[in-house]
């Protein structure tokens, strides 16, 4: 009988493996935030393995830094995290100032806080808007860009550029604020504050958004630390660490006298949580929703810091001070400094042999370490959850590839 079935030409057996498939996502996939390529090994709808391939945006920034003076390298830091270029300028400027043991004037310090925190708001707005796009809702993106545009207008008025500012530089800032700028900034804050409730209505409490993010891509605190995650990714897992408070004194001195609470969940509560929507029941600490929510809280926190900085800056008498000479000699030695950028802890390391051009320049990217955890987070999730997880890490490829 068995012989008869084998010989029957009407019965065809397919010898095709249907269990696993390799799917290439990117490098031009819109939800990969730039040019990131993810190779997914899928079993039906389930992702069993993810391998990120990076380097498409590699521009040899570190090698270029070995051939330029620190101030000449400032524009290259702009192009790392191009969504928060001010914070990148600041990180590098502070690292060089640490090596040179240089202190900026009181006025420059407060202006730096003001600018850096506005930069943080702008970056988190993109992070929030683009995250909505990843999950298939277009409107939050437009809402976010409407407000970001106003920050860019303020930046343009201060330094002339809208994306790559090179405003904060080694030894201070390239220029003081133009007259009337502070009034415009205050007007923006007054207009922006009520809008945040709109964002919460659009995304944070949106039933579809919560379904797509709550309980997805849970990152445990131990794993986050082990992978070197930082910024909102680390705080979203409940690790209480913010370089603005915990970092080296070179950096924390900048925030001396400023009142702010680190946006992290402690004992099941976020600071000042009465003004924000409640955490959804499905959300688990360390999931995509929490990472997103920490960013939203930081927008409010940064707004508060901007207000404090405006007060302190306008109380400062005296000059802003001049930035250091373009060809200022560096003392021999090395210095490493991490600053809290919107995407995480951005570290700059420079080694000097005593000339004005550093011997070695190194940028430790926060997104680089944050991205390395994707393989771990995506194991066992659905294909549709991959953009949700990658988007929640809020990476920027310019900073990863350098």
């Amino acid at each position, binding site marked *: 009988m068995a012989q008869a079935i084998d010989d029957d030409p009407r019965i065809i057996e397919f010898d095709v493996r249907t269990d696993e498939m390799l799917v290439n996502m990117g490098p031009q996939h819109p939800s990969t935030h730039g040019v990131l390529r993810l190779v997914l090994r899928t079993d039906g709808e389930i992702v069993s393995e993810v391998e990120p391939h990076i380097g498409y945006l590699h521009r040899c920034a570190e090698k270029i830094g070995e051939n330029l003076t620190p101030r000449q390298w400032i524009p290259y830091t702009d192009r790392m995290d191009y969504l928060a270029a001010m914070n990148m300028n600041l990180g590098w400027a502070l690292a060089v100032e640490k090596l040179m043991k240089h202190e900026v004037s009181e006025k420059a310090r407060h202006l730096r806080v003001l600018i850096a925190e506005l930069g943080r708001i702008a970056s988190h707005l993109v992070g929030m808007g683009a995250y909505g796009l990843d999950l298939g809702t277009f409107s939050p993106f437009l809402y976010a860009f409407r407000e970001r545009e106003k920050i860019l207008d303020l930046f343009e008025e201060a330094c002339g550029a809208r994306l790559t500012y090179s405003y904060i530089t080694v030894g201070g800032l390239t220029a003081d604020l133009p007259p009337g700028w502070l009034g415009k900034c205050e007007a923006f804050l007054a207009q922006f504050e009520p809008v945040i409730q709109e964002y919460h209505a659009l995304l944070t409490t949106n039933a579809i958004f919560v379904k797509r993010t709550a309980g997805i891509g849970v990152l445990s605190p131990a794993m986050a630390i082990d*992978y*070197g995650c930082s910024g909102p990714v680390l705080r979203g897992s409940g690790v209480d660490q913010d370089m603005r408070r915990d970092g080296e004194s070179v950096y924390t001195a900048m925030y001396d006298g400023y009142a702010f609470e680190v946006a992290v969940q402690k004992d099941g509560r976020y600071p000042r949580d009465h003004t924000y929507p409640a955490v959804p029941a499905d959300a688990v600490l360390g999931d995509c929703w929490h990472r997103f929510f920490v960013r939203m809280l930081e927008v409010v926190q940064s707004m508060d810091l901007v207000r404090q900085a405006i007060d302190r800056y306008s109380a400062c008498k005296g000059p802003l001070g001049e930035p250091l000479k373009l060809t200022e000699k560096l003392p021999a030695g090395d210095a490493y400094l991490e600053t809290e950028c919107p995407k995480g802890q951005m570290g700059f390391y420079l080694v000097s042999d005593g000339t004005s051009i550093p011997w070695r320049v190194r940028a*430790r990217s926060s997104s680089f370490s944050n991205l390395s955890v994707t393989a771990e987070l995506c194991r066992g999730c659905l294909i549709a959850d991959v953009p949700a997880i990658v988007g929640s890490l809020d990476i920027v490829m310019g900073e990863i*590839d350098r």
Partner: protein
Amino acid sequence: MRGPAFLEKLEAVLPGAVTGRNLEALDPWIEVAPDRLVDVCRWLKESSDPRFDALECVTAVDWFEPDQKKAAKVTWQPRLELVYHLWSTAARASLVLKVSLPRWKDDTPGELPEVPSVAGVWRTADWHEREVYDMSGVTFTGHPDLRRILCPEDWVGYPLRKDYEMPLDYHGIRGR
């Protein structure tokens, strides 16, 4: 436990592992023998006080002057220096480890120097060591997946070495 006391403890637990130090530097650092690196790192992560549970950055510095005229004046020995920046989330303290390697293994140009991988201690090291391998040419023995990360897989040379020369041609694309 900070500074000299911490170092004394480390030397008592792992005698001979520390080969150099500079506690007066901006970022105090200790130099570790390459073959003892994993032991030291494991101790720092698991048993020391404070415990350094996070590895922030791994990088390499190429101490080499390719210019013959300038090379005569330099004070340092040609070497490749690995720099590890550690961080303790609980104590909010940092520590810098340095490891000195020859620029080429057995002084044979083209043979990459070797150092044990710490990817088994901190997962951060996985990608960071791949980047150091890619950019500075160091083989991390015991690394789970050592291949280029930023450059294409068929790239020739290690761009962050001081004697690196840009290739004249890459798949028909003109360099220089």
